[in-house]
């Protein structure tokens, strides 16, 4: 494990039992199925994919909101499975979260003051008897996320704020424990275009100032492009391609990555109407009954007979750039010859 690696997950899996009843056999929903990833200090790793691909569950596993069926999570080189109470305390401070829905991510019955200080107290960042310190810190955090004058916001309830302001509170709460990793689950997806840019900009500035790393979970490629250093594309519980964002978005080694990028409309009539578009057939198969072989083969335009039977290995096509496709090397070299 490299010096700079902050979080590493190995073959992580989470199966949910569903449909178990008197008359039905129990079935597994393969939400996350063998995911390996790492996040370096101070970088942004984007986890992208469509709904049901397992990106949010991966985030919840890292946050310890779900227990993995298999696999392991290492934070600062230590396996979570062997954590002591003291380790957990550090983890609670070191790993934080920002959720998508700014409505339900803040307790509607609590003031912003309570919301921010409760996180500091519970995580042990500030002892409960130092209420004054906590309030000072809350004030400083509000200023940092652009909510000024801080005193005014401290006394407000979440429903008195706009969506963008609530999301800033969510970010301030995550920062309140001085984390070095923030799992941001669709943090700007419910925001309007104009507000979205403001919040993204804030996240980016905070990263530069504090050196905090982000696991940025999103279905919006356009957002990911601008904010991520590296990207991992998920499909049906598996990572199909990962690597530096510019390279992955350019080379599009995995056919699914290519389809995803080509499907995203670009806000420019000339470009978007003239670009080559791959329209995939059908929808994402049920994670209760994923296809054999490569999970993407039934919708893939590049599929051959072996894709239906053999699970493609994950290969490293370039330093730090991995893809799980039988034709990964072939596709990468054709990209290289083009450039």
């Amino acid at each position, binding site marked *: 494990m490299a010096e700079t690696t902050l979080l590493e997950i190995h073959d992580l899996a989470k199966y949910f039992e569903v449909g178990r009843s008197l008359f039905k056999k129990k079935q597994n929903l393969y939400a996350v199925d063998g995911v390996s990833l790492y996040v370096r200090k101070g970088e942004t790793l984007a986890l992208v994919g469509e709904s049901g691909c397992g990106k949010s569950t991966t985030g*919840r596993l890292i*946050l*310890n*909101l779900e227990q993995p069926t298999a696999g392991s999570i290492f934070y600062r080189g230590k396996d979570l499975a062997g954590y002591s109470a003291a380790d*957990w*305390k550090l983890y*609670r401070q070191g*790993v*934080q*979260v920002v*959720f*998508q*829905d700014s409505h*339900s*991510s*803040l*307790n*509607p*019955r*609590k003031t912003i003051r309570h919301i921010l200080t*409760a*996180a500091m107290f*519970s*995580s*042990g960042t500030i002892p409960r008897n130092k209420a004054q310190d906590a309030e000072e810190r809350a004030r400083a955090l509000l200023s940092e996320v652009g909510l000024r004058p801080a005193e005014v916001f401290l006394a407000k*309830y979440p*429903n*008195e704020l706009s969506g963008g302001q609530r999301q800033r509170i*969510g970010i301030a*709460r*995550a920062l309140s*424990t001085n984390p070095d990793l923030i799992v941001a689950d669709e943090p700007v997806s419910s925001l309007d275009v104009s507000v979205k840019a403001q919040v993204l900009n804030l996240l980016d500035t905070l990263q530069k100032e504090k050196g905090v790393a982000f696991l940025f979970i999103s279905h919006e490629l356009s957002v990911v492009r601008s904010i991520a250093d590296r990207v991992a594309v998920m499909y049906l519980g598996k990572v199909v391609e990962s690597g530096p964002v510019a390279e992955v978005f350019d080379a599009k080694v995995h056919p699914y990555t290519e389809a995803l990028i080509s499907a995203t409309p670009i806000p420019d009539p000339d470009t978007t109407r003239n670009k080559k578009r791959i329209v995939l057939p059908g929808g994402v198969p049920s994670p209760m009954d994923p296809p054999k072989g490569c999970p993407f083969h039934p919708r893939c335009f590049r599929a051959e007979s072996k894709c239906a039977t053999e699970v493609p290995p994950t290969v490293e096509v370039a330093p730090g750039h991995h893809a799980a496709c039988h034709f990964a090397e072939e596709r990468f070299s054709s990209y290289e010859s083009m450039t």
Partner: protein
Amino acid sequence: MTELRRIAYYFRRKHFAMFGLLLVLALVTVAVLAPQIAPNNPHAVSRDRFLSPGADARYPLGTDNLGRCVLSGVIYGTRVSLFVGLAAAATSTFIGILIGSMSGYFGGKTDAFLMRFTELFMTIPRFVLALIVVAFFGSGLDRLILVIGVLSWPGAARLVRSEFLSHRNLPYVDSGRVSGMSHLRLIFVEILPNIIPPVIVVATLDVATAILLEASLGFFGLGDPNLRSWGGMLSRAQSHIRTAWWMSVFPGSAIAVTVLGFNLVGDGLNEAANPRMQIEGGST
């Protein structure tokens, strides 16, 4: 607390609910000021037995078989009914919150066990059990309250459970977990304040049920023998129903009015808390 303000807004617009609230407030006033309002000592026996209402200015609603003032009995009975009703409802709501929150928050096996336990309680015929318990342990006011409270919590528990189920995986609770918040703190400090409005509705309706139950126990002679209660007055009126109608009609009406008042308030609160349309400025 803008939500409570909103509920108050809608509540004020409901005429029946406001009428109910007026009744309840009037009853509370009567209970508090009983010694000032009541024309006679409710326990004082006199030789003027079976006086009909209006026959004697000292006894506006007549007297009973022992010559006690019916009006004063009804007025002092308000104290017993309201006290038992409120205290019993508070007890049942407290138990309901305790069991319902654990059940809904933890889910899984805890939930399955606690809910079976709750259902067991719901299948017990409440009144019969109350009769047995009071017959065995005596019928002091404290025991009445405890019996009624302990037998009435399943409704509140089921409501609290379903509210906790819908809250326990909301992002604000999850982010509390991420910060290492304890279960107790999440349950009682974070989630509980969010479900207070529906709990108040159920508690209000529980007051009405408890008053009815107390009156029924009194009717069977199991009320506190040292207090004049509506149920007890009805019980004594039984054998004189053909000759002295006033002995049963007035305490009976008092029970009906009180139960009606609390039910109207409860229903009104329920509707005000869930208005079919909630429009907030700024949404499309």
